[in-house]
């Protein structure tokens, strides 16, 4: 089989062609390096395309603003788990990176003076917690689409090389160094060995681990699976953002922009209930706060609909033209999937899994770090990670809306800059010879040979998603999570034994789903184990049995090693480089 392995050499391979991967690719090709981008879908189908509301930057186009205020809001939003040096870096780069995006062609909405339009979003304030800020730069409610397409277009200009519809199976390693990846062409199952001096992971999220989610089918945590199999750790995997306003029962995202433009959440009594949970900012509280509020309203019997299992997002009081102009995509989703025009009828919503705050731990240069033998954080030579799959950590225990698009472009560019500097400083760096090829091929061959069984990949995936939803949802406790963990073990066994129905080599989606499910299962284990151990409530991790935040014991990042099935911890950075540190305070909105 290894005879038929095609082999290529690159300076850098980038796995994933969402906003992060494409931003990095653009800089690296412009600098003349030999770069390849591997994407399991055509690049513009990456899930960045679905981001709606916008990207945060203190441009001060609408309200007075400073990046330091943005930094404060982000740290507070993260429930003080975010690394303050990383957050400082991201927020201070924001204004410039947004202008750069504009320069790349992103069709931002505009103000009358010709500047970029900015809207209000949850968790944003002026002057360290005072009045509401308007910080989210938007292209109507299709900002992700606009950014992804513009970045792809600029990559066409620069001539980046793409391996479209290629699936990354595993990282090539030489000792503890990473030296490329084995990928598979989905069209014909041809395996390709991409040797590289530097490997950049930008594989996005893993929301498919929960049953109801806003994520695309492709968000299966492939980067996390690869890193875990390579023996490195995953960080803060207990923190999953449940977006307060997913379409009830279906999961499509209804952007926070709806509340930013004035939308109000109401329960079955018609009450604008957020007033009780966040008296000052009401519907524009942080996402974890709003998601919990909705869950409580429904649990306490104030849900709407025949089953009282959702609340209503009401924008009928807004001007119809404003809705058509600022929220055309949302209106479209509502009319398509619910047959309701939100200008006239409110949208039924319920929290749905949206974003993974945790991921592959990295430093400020986007280099992957993992504990060494002495439990010190050591850089993994040759491996970088950015975007949702990475945990640098700028989102801590809860991400603010509008910070994810910012994260991907800031760290996309930063990773490319550090790789570029490294390639220029170290011109004699050779590509190392991998020593784990056999292991990688063996894993792949198992799925090639797996004969049909009664059980199926689709069934196992559904069961996994249900287990995770029941065990690790908006609210968790020891029982729910322990039950989930107990159920994950038989699921793991089923996955070891299940066979496939499709044995062809052309677009074998069954085999692809099996490889993806292996990654999802790792993500599930990481989530449940990390969450079980954290005996406090912080950000999106809300434990019924430990309802308070506990800074003395738990102001630290969780690290999960799948190889050892063991947890360890690392310090939160509380020392930004320029700004004075923000001491953890009680978080009220």
């Amino acid at each position, binding site marked *: 089989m290894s005879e038929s392995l095609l082999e290529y050499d690159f300076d850098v391979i980038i796995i994933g062609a969402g906003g992060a991967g494409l931003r990095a690719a653009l800089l690296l090709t412009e600098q003349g390096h030999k770069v390849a981008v591997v994407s399991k*879908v*055509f690049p*513009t*189908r*990456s*899930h960045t*395309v*679905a981001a709606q509301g916008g990207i945060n930057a203190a*441009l001060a186009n609408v309200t007075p603003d400073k990046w330091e205020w943005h930094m404060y809001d982000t740290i507070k939003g993260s429930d003080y788990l975010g690394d303050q040096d990383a957050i400082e870096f991201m927020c201070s780069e924001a204004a*410039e990176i*947004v*202008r*750069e995006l*504009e*320069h*790349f*062609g992103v*069709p*931002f*909405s*505009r*103000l*009358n*003076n010709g*500047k*970029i339009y900015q809207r209000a979003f949850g968790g944003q304030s002026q002057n360290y917690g005072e009045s509401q800020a308007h910080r989210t730069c938007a*292209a109507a409610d299709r900002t992700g*689409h*606009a950014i992804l*397409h*513009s970045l792809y*277009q*600029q990559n*066409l*200009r620069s001539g980046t090389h793409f391996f479209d519809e290629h699936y990354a199976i595993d990282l090539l390693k030489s000792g503890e160094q990473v030296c490329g990846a084995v990928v598979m062409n989905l*069209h014909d199952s041809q395996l390709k060995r991409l040797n590289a001096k530097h490997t950049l992971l930008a594989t996005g999220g893993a929301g498919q681990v929960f049953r109801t989610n806003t994520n*695309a*089918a*492709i968000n299966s945590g492939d980067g996390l699976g690869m890193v875990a199999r390579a023996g490195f750790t995953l960080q803060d995997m207990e923190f999953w953002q449940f977006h307060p306003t997913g379409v009830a029962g279906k999961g*499509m*995202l209804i952007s926070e922009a709806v509340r930013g433009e004035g939308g109000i959440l109401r329960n079955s009594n018609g009450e604008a209930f957020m007033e009780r949970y966040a008296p000052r900012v009401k519907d524009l509280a942080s996402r974890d706060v709003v998601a919990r509020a909705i869950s409580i309203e429904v649990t306490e019997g104030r849900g709407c609909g025949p089953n009282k299992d959702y609340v209503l997002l009401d924008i009928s009081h807004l001007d119809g033209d404003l809705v058509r102009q600022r929220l055309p*995509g949302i209106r*479209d*989703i509502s009319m*398509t*999937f619910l*047959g309701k025009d939100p200008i006239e009828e409110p949208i039924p919503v319920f929290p749905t899994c949206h974003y993974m705050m945790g991921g592959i731990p990295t430093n400020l240069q986007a280099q992957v770090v993992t504990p060494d033998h002495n439990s010190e954080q050591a850089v993994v030579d040759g491996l970088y990670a950015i975007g949702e799959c990475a945990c640098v950590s700028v989102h801590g225990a809860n991400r603010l809306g509008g910070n994810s698009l910012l994260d991907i472009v800031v760290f996309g560019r930063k990773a490319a800059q550090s790789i570029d500097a490294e390639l220029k400083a170290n011109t004699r760096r050779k590509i190392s010879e991998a020593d784990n090829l056999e292991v990688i091929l063996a894993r792949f061959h198992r799925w090639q040979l797996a004969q049909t069984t009664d059980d*199926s*990949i*689709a*069934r196992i995936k559904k069961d996994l998603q249900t287990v995770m939803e029941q065990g690790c949802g908006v609210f968790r406790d020891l029982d729910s999570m322990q039950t989930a963990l107990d159920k994950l073990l038989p699921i793991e066994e089923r996955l070891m034994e299940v066979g*496939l*129905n*499709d044995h*062809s*080599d*052309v*677009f074998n*989606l069954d085999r692809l*789903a099996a490889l993806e499910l292996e990654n999802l299962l790792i993500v599930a284990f990481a989530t449940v184990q990390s969450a079980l151990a954290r005996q406090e409530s912080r950000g999106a991790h809300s434990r019924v049995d430990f309802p308070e935040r506990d800074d003395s014991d738990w102001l630290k990042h969780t690290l999960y090693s799948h190889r050892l099935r063991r947890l360890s911890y690392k310090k939160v950075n509380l020392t930004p480089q320029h700004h004075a540190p923000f001491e953890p305070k009680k978080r009220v909105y």
Partner: protein
Amino acid sequence: MEVLISRYHPDKDDEPYMQTFEVDGSQLHSDAMLLELILHLREIDPTLGVRYSCQEGVCGSDALNVNGKNLLSCTTPLKSLKEPIEIRPLPGFPIIKDLIVDLELFYQQYKSVEPFLQSEPLDPQQEHLQTPKQREQLDGKYECILCACCSASCPSFWWNPDLFAGPAALLAAQRFTIDSRDITTIDRLHKLDSPTKTFRCRHIQNCTASCPKGLNPSQAIQSLKNRIVKGH
């Protein structure tokens, strides 16, 4: 309900054929989209090949020809389709497997119109200014998701997929010629002045009729032609 799906596995079939499935409609949600039905069929037969991803009509993966019309399966309510439902791959492209087609020519044409902004050098202190009115010009042009429904319904593109840019690419071309920030308009118009690339469009308007995002490529091409004629 009765569902007919075009099947083709290159390793065992000489040519595509229609396979009939009888589906118990009660297994699906009452307001299910077509994609839900297809995914249900994939559970019955995991060898059924189809692309899909976001499931909400923004990634553009799941364009299909259903009952003769090109559409996105994830935004098409099952109820809106007459039975038997005939599902085929997008017409005019080589079939790779079942409902999956090779869109290489489509992408090539998109790339050929230089679909990227070329503006004044970046000033990190200040964005390029654009009035709301100038920005409004881009509405209906930039939202394309490259699903290929339009080009796959265009007879001119069927005949000349290698020469004619097709509606999706020309919509993108038009977007960059009218973007107030782009400084290469005249150059762009000059490059588009070709009987094959642009003027192959006969305004049949199938593109506009089939666009799942409600865009109007035909009108965009009309304005593009007018711009080419005017030369600026």
